[in-house]
Each structure stands twice: as C-alpha cells, then as structure tokens.
C-alpha cells in the first residue's frame, strides 16, 4: 500500500536528507552478536563515582522531583562557575552566563540554533563527533567541513579555517581533545586560530567535553585567549571525565545575550534539565580532582598500551594526546574502513567503529576506544594482530 510512502512524503525534507549516523548502523549489526570484545564504546567504562550516585539517591529521598529554574539550579551554576574559573581560568557569572543542559548534545543544539539564520555557514573540523553537521542542518544552517589529517596529527590549522571562510560564515565548532581521533590542539595553534576568528569577527562553539582527559598537554580552552571570551560559547559537561553519560548533564557558558538566547530555546523545548541529575552534578563538583584522577590515570595506561601495541604490530597510528580513542590507519590492508571493521567483527569478534562514521575523511581509519578493561584491550590486540597477519598473507 501507499501508506508508508505517504508518511515518508510528509517528513520534513531537511530531516530526510540527513543520513542516519553511521554508528547507528554499525551498532545494529554489533548488537546481534554475542561474546564480542568492543572497542566501539564512546563512553567511559567506569560507573559514576559512588558518592555521586549516592548523593542522587539522597536527593530523590529529599524530594528532588520537581522542575528547576530554566537555567538550572543556582547552586549548580555557582559550582560550575567556580570549577571553570579554577580549571580554565575563565570567569562566567552563575546568574547570567551559565545554562545547565541535557548533556553537551543539547548544549550544542542550543548554541547552533541560537546563532544561525537560514543559510549561514558553520565550520567544523572532521573526523568529528557525529552530531555537528546534522545539528547545523536542522537549524537551517550549512555545515562546512574542514578535513584534518594524520600527517598533521589531526590538528586544525588557522590557514585551513581561513580558507573556508565566506561572507556567510557565522561560527567555528572546535573539539579538542577530539572524538574520534584523540587529537589535542597545542596552544600555539589555538592562538593562531583565535587570531583568524577575531580578524573575521566570527563566533566559536567550543566543545570541551574531553578537556580533563588530556595526557601530556595542559587543559586549555580557546575561550580563555585574548578577545575570545565574548565570542565563544563554551560547552562542557559531566559525561566523560566523571563517567556520568547517563545523567545527561552538560552546560553552556557564554556572555549574557547568547545565554539568554539559548535559554529561550531551552525554556520552550526542554524546560529544564533533570533535577536529580543536577543534584548529582553538584555532588560531582565537590571533589572533581579526586574523582577524575584515578580514571584519568587508568585511561593513560591503556592509551600507552594500545598505542604501543599498534606500533608493535606495524599499524600506523598517531599518538592520541587526549580523550579515550586511538585512530589507527588500516588503509594498508587494502580494505575500506567499513570492510575492515566488518571482517574484524566477523572473523575475530572484535568491534571497532569504521572511521567513516565520523566523516568521509575518516576513510582508512578505525576508531578504537580504550574505554574498556585492560583485559579486554589485551585480548583485542591479540585478535587484531592475528587478523592483520592473516590479511597480509
């Protein structure tokens, strides 16, 4: 019958045109398999620290089941303000410059929607998190991709940014430490990019979700550079460093007019972020350094292990400086990313996400998350090496 066709026809054109996330497709295949070792996990393998979960339960016992202010609990915004100041050297007013969101995903959507007029362009670097381009498209904007390469350690250059700027360019989305590459951006590159942004009078949306998970460099944000605070929307949250993905706790910090604009969208679409989760986030900011340290150290050891393993098996991989991903080059196998990932899954029961799920320039790469136990990583490396040796025969 024509029923489904007519429904299809009724879906907004700009939604139909956006493809499903490549991760989603791969997930559907992987979820049918049993006993696999997964290097495909884009979230911490740790549970949120117990004191945070316990505080959430206590908050619920006290009756934390009602709405909060649209911007979020003031106590939480104050704690966020203090944490950002201490960690990034950035001062934001808890009353007018911080909004608590449902994860950074919502914050990203708010930021993009708050600034875009139809047809305006947003630059983003790829390989990147799956949502940037779709969110820009949903907001009526035009996503403009800047490809980064392994030879440049997947670092974005100011020249590459400048090359893509047009009169319609509104903003640049910046995400370092990066998902899926694990790349970080050194200060001198950040400064050069900031200089271009100021010269062309653009905005920056800084996705800082992996900030704390940085191994050799120091935590920094473009927002803290001269002239940048007032043209940056600073996005951060609790998902990665605190292992709180399921709490869906993020926030956006920006000068009052931008925060007010984001608040309007949030107010009419989300009302407020979950109250128990906001209570959890308050607890998470009681001793962040203690909570983060042990997980950070575990990731670092695993990063070394997986990077050294790739090296030993002759798989080219740049050394990831942050997040919990390694992005080895598997192009020498002669297989596409997708075929490599599928065969690795079929033949060795190891799941890793094809690089193409993070943009076309991810072709030839495989995202291997080391957010899994060392035991799993060790076994996965044994299997991966066996697989590669078989391919070479």
């Amino acid at each position, binding site marked *: 019958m024509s029923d489904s066709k007519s429904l299809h026809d009724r879906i907004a054109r700009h939604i139909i045109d956006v493809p499903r*996330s490549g*991760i989603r497709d*791969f*997930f559907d295949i*992987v*979820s049918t398999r049993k006993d*696999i070792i*997964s290097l*495909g*996990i*884009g*979230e911490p*393998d740790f*549970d949120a620290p117990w004191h945070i979960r316990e505080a959430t339960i206590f908050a619920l016992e006290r009756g934390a089941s009602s709405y909060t202010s649209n911007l979020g609990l003031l106590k939480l915004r104050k704690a966020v303000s203090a944490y950002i100041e201490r960690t990034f050297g950035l001062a934001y007013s808890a009353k007018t410059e911080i909004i608590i969101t449902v994860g950074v995903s919502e914050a990203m959507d708010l930021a993009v929607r708050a600034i875009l007029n139809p047809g305006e362009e947003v630059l983003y670097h790829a390989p990147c*998190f*799956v*949502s940037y381009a779709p969110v820009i498209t949903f907001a009526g904007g035009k996503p403009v991709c800047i490809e980064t390469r392994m030879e440049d350690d997947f670092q974005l250059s100011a020249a590459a940014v400048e090359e893509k700027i047009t009169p319609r360019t509104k903003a640049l989305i910046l995400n370092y430490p990066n*998902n899926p590459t694990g790349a970080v951006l050194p200060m001198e590159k950040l400064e050069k990019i900031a200089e271009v942004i100021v010269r062309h009078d653009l905005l920056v949306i800084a996705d800082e979700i992996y900030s704390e998970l940085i191994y050799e460099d120091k935590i920094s944000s473009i927002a803290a550079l001269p002239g940048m605070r007032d043209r940056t929307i600073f996005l951060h949250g609790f998902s990665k460093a605190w292992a709180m993905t399921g709490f869906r706790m993020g926030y956006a910090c920006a000068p009052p007019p931008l925060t007010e604009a984001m608040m309007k969208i949030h107010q009419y679409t989300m009302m407020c972020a979950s109250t128990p989760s906001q209570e959890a986030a308050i607890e998470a900011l009681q001793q962040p350094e203690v909570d983060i340290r042990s997980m950070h*150290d575990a990731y670092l*050891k*695993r990063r*070394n*292990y997986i990077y*050294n*393993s790739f090296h030993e098996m002759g798989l080219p991989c740049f050394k990831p400086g942050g997040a919990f991903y390694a992005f080895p080059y598997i192009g020498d196998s002669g297989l596409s990313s997708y075929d490599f990932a599928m065969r690795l899954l079929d033949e060795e029961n190891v*799941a890793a*996400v094809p690089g193409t*799920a993070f943009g076309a320039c991810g072709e030839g790469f495989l995202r291997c998350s080391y957010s899994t136990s*060392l035991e799993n990583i*060790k076994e996965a490396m044994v299997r991966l090496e066996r697989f590669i040796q078989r391919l070479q025969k």
Partner: protein
Amino acid sequence: MDQLLQLLKENALETAEDMGKMLNMSAEDVRAKIKDYEDQDIIRGYQAILDEDKLDINQVRAAIEVKVTPERQGGFNQIAQRISRFDEVESLFLMSGTYDLLLFVNGPDLRNVASFVSEKLATMDGVTATATHFMLKTYKSFGVLMEKEDEYERLKVSP
C-alpha cells in the same frame, strides 16, 4: 604514588611486558624497578585477595581494640611490636581516638581467639583493656567487593 606500584597494587600478577607497555618502559626496566622496590623493603610481599567466606575452612576473625599504657621509653612501639609477633595477629595499627591499638586476629575457632585475648593479650604488662569484635561477614576486602554484582549493560557501540 609511582604508577608502577599502583599497577602492582591493582594486579601483582601483571607481566613486566604489559606493565612496560602501559608505562612506556622496557620489561627489563620494570623488572629492575620492582627489584629495587623489593630491596628497599617498599614492596613487602605479594598476596592473593580471597573471599574466605567461600572457603570451607574453620576460621574466626576478630578486630580487637586495645588500650595500653605507653612506656616511658619507646612509647607505644615496644608493646605494639611485642603484640604483633603473635602469629594470631594479622595486622596491627596505632590509632587515634578512644583506644590505642587495633588488631585484626585470626584463629581456627572462637575458643582459640578468646584464649589468645584472655591469656596472652590481656595479661601483658601495659595492656589495660581490650574489646573484641568478631567478624560475621566480609563485604569488601582490600578494595574488592566480595559480592559480585551483574554489570549494568552498556551499549556495545556508541558515538
């Protein structure tokens, strides 16, 4: 704490090769460093963490609070060392608070532990009072939860 010691505390059976990979050191360097820690008496031994409740062994464990009179020379050290030499004593700590020494003792049965307390411990010069608490069940030991919970299922693949 040194990351190598941290790794050993988590799993002393980890191979030098794997630890080296995690710490960007050669296996030889890892072995040498461990030897060094052993020579310096920083690493004092390696033991397995057991769920002893699961073993069919007759064993009684107790925590004993002990009040002592510190000696003019040597303070608590002398008496603490004397007590710690008994095989029954698994661990012994000098404590702040309402008592001075905390002992964890181990014996084949209740009578054995009771007689250790009444005949050996309480009768020592300097010991003024003891309070014995028998352990009923172990929930967590050396940072390990004894009751294994099913892991909450995570997505196998996520962005």
